[in-house]
């Protein structure tokens, strides 16, 4: 761990100002990921700007019938909030599938969006990693890649190869719900649709997201449509708790007269960001439940998936999980 200075601003403009005036500074909220990364010398901020005193810790209704989740509300408080439980049970389920109770009590919603990959090579300075050290190569692609991505990877050029996954559960649900992230920064406020928040590795695997340096996430807006009647979150992992998803699936359906009228499917554990394909979700719209072809949807979602040896099993596993999740969400099967 390096030597760093510390600031604890009391309002948002001061916090944003801190980052604008200190190159190499980083925001810290719950610290559940950042501190681990600092201990391993993966992150080396020279200044920590503690934002826990900012008043971003409420959950409020929005004018258009949605819900605004303050960036500093903890994962636990979000999951157990009555409005989230009743209107966005998918989000509650996803959050509670993640981490451990202790971590959820510390981790914040804003921080969760910036959670970094669990790739072993990213964490280990003795091995190459393009995400940690641009241009150094990728240890995982020919190494132990059991937890790695099968979709949207970058593997053509050694210096930009990256098959890391985004580890969040919460983000998979936010993706399915079409959440919108509100940020503020030196150039004012803006909103980022969730689909554009995280990015694929492409030519710049060191970039996880599209937030600009110095910008601060203030809230996450959930649209009114919460899929509260038909939803599920399936997380497949190596143990019952405190393990990252090998594959996870968030499904939200709207069903009228036994017919699907809207469908969302987001996958976790398979790509550098929560994986969605609205055009494939559309295949389900209009289908009758009793005849719905969930297998074709699963096949279509995994089209182009590529395994790297240890993680090749994820392709079949993801398909099975999608089929199960769709059945569960549609109440054709009990939740597992």
């Amino acid at each position: 761990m390096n030597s760093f200075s510390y600031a604890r601003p009391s309002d948002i403009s001061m916090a944003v100002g801190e980052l604008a005036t200190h190159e190499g500074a980083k925001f810290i909220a719950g610290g559940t990921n950042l501190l681990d990364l600092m201990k391993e010398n993966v992150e080396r901020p020279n200044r920590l700007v503690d934002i826990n005193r900012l008043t971003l810790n409420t959950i409020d209704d929005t004018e258009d019938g949605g819900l605004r989740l303050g960036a500093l509300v903890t994962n636990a408080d979000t999951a157990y909030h009555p409005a989230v439980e009743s209107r966005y049970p998918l989000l509650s389920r996803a959050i509670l599938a993640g981490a451990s109770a202790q971590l959820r009590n510390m981790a914040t919603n804003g921080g969760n969006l910036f959670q970094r990959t669990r790739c072993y090579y990213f964490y280990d300075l003795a091995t190459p990693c393009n995400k940690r050290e641009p241009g150094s190569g990728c240890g995982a692609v020919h190494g132990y890649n059991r937890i790695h991505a099968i979709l949207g990877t970058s593997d053509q050029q050694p210096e930009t190869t990256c098959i890391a996954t985004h580890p969040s559960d919460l983000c998979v649900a936010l993706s399915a719900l079409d959440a919108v992230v509100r940020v503020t920064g030196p150039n004012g406020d803006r909103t980022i649709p969730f689909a554009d928040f995280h990015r694929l590795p492409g030519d710049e695997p060191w970039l996880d997201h599209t937030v600009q340096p110095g910008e601060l996430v203030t809230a996450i807006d959930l649209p009114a449509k919460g899929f509260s009647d038909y939803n599920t979150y399936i997380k497949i992992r190596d143990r019952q708790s405190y393990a990252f998803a090998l594959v996870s699936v968030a499904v939200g359906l709207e069903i009228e007269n036994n017919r699907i009228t809207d469908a969302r499917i987001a996958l976790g554990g398979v790509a550098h960001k929560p994986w969605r394909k609205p055009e494939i979700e559309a295949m389900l719209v209009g289908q009758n439940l009793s005849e719905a072809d969930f297998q074709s949807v699963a096949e279509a979602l995994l089209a182009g998936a590529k395994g790297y040896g240890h993680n090749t099993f994820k392709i079949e596993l993801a398909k099975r999980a999608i089929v199960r999740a769709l059945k569960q969400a549609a109440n054709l099967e009990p939740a597992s």
Partner: protein
Amino acid sequence: MTKYIGKSINRVDGVAKVTGKAKYAAEYKAADLAHGWVISSSISKGKITRIDAEAALQLPGVIQVFSHENRPGLAWFDMSYKDQDAPPGSPFRPLRDATVKYSGQPVALVVAESLELARYAASLIRIEYEEEEHETALEHNLHRAREPKSGVASLLKPPPPKPRGDFEKAFQRAAVQVSGTYVHSAEHHNPMEMFATTVVYEKNDKLTIYDKTQGAPNSQLYVSQVFGIPFKDVRVISPFVGGGFGAGLRPQYQLFLAVLAARELKRSVRVSLTRQQMFTFGHRPATVQNVSLGASADGKLEAIRHDAVGETSQFEDYTEIVVNWAGMLYPAQNVTLTYNLVPLDVYTPIDMRAPGGVTGLSALECAIDELAHQVGLDPVEFRLKNYTERDMNEDLPYSSKELRECFRQGAERFGWANRTPEPRSMRNGHTLVGWGMATGIWESMHMPARAEAVLTVNGKLRVSSATADIGTGTYTIMTQIAADTLGMPIEDVIFRLGDTDMPLAPIQGGSWTAATVGSAVKVACEDLGKKLFKMAQKMPHSPFADVKLEEIVFENAHIRLKKDSSVAVSLLDIVGTNGGRAVSETSTSVPNMLEQRKYARAVHSAVFVEVEVDEDFGTVRVTRAVTAVAGGQILNPKTARSQIIGGMVWGISKGLEEESVMDHQFGRFMNHSLAEYHVPVNADIQGLDVIFVEETDTIVNPLGVKGLGEIGIVGMPAAIANAVFHATGKRIRSLPITLDKLL
């Protein structure tokens, strides 16, 4: 007369542990304490060409950076570096020279005024290497397998017995045959407490060392020999150990580094390892096994072949008993057992809970299950049909063996009779249910040990021995034994351990501590009793003047006449005649080898497991398990049960989750954190049940106890794999059984 032995006495150290009063090696304070931070090699083989510590040394508060370039001269010969558990070979010497022998090797120690500063300084040090080709993959190097070198360690770990009968012929003729290859990767112990040493630099250059170890005397021996310090100037103290599991059987490198720094700087130094560094020393070795079994059509086991190849380092031949169990458990007449090693560019493996035993039985007991299935016999029935009262390796009878009763009681508790034999026959929606079982065995060892018993002037009994309590309950059972032996109320008895100023005991391992130290405590208390009796006889108007030892009992802190309990003298009164001094006795317990060698001595278990497998996802859960143990006299059912449950949990871990995964590109274990190195969480564990079958053994040791440290784990992984087969019809021969193997 036993008032406490056999009773569920609460842990005598429990309150200290849960209130934080129990102190561990890294928690001891010293004036002017300096803090060390270990830098680990990033390559697995090669040479250090340059160490640039300039930037680190310039930081105010950084005291020194130690490496091979500036370390002091130390003992020359390998002999000096051999600890009590050193296998044959040339022990690893930290900072010896520029050579890197394995990934994660300690290559430098930064010492600073604070831990934070040492850690930061370490991040500024640049080390350059010249890399060489490394070999770390066991499965790619099986052609290099060779016999292990023998040494002192072979005494406790005998090589496989010579072949008996003619395996090849019998196997070819056998009506039913099974063959399979079984593999597992390395595993790391990962006790909760990280390895740490606090060296207190005393006046006159003496050292008081608080070390995480399973044997304070072993650390003392090592430090004394390596640094050339007389024994009397090195005191090692280790009263509490936050889990050991075998990792603490040998001194770890933080002890060497802390002592080196303390002596060079002439001040107190603490060195703690990080969780990542807990993956940079001994581990359970990756092993490849082949098992072939042949049986007659009616299920009589006729031929056994069990071959194992384990990894070891390039510098020591670590061995464990992997294949001998087949010859101990089954009476087949044609048996060939082999065990070989492949040296790789890794650190020397070290004993890890049930070393070799859980490895070998995970393969053997799966193969037995497979054979039973082929023959068409229930797996319990098959084992009863092939039961032996003798250890066929040694051709000796067992001193006791209530395994039949384990099968019977375990099966009954589990409800085994309701099992439908056909795989995939017990289903509930997507969930496939499977029931599997296996046998467990572990040798019941007994070593020499010493203990001191002291009756204080206040009439309290203080007993001590330099053993360890790695969480097993040693404090508690020794207190029970002492209290019963001298007829004292348990609250007046204090047992202490983990200090080289105490009488010598062996390292705590191999499940031998209860028998070994327990016997020493018993003898010491008996001898103290004799001494007190003699003193009582010399008291004025002693009622015992003409009484023989056989005619009295020790009861409720008194010596009483057996035939008239009203005739009594209190121990307090006896010690009162000693001129204000305590009365003490130090005794040695030595196993009765003449008698013991006529018998094979082992603890046995039968394990029954239920799993649920998600048919689509391959996820496996152990939903309940029963272990029935024949472990001789159970000193304390509560701590004993905890021991067995701990072993069962670890068996679930080994069966389903646990694995140190090495990337052979880098020769480095990659999942070196507890987020990625999976062991069970509470949510994984349910329905564990333990039965202690009644078993009397007058041979095994004076207490009739059999160690329970290993027996809880040995049969679990095989029982789980067998249950998975019953659930799915898939025979998985590679542990852990992660979901991808079942898709």
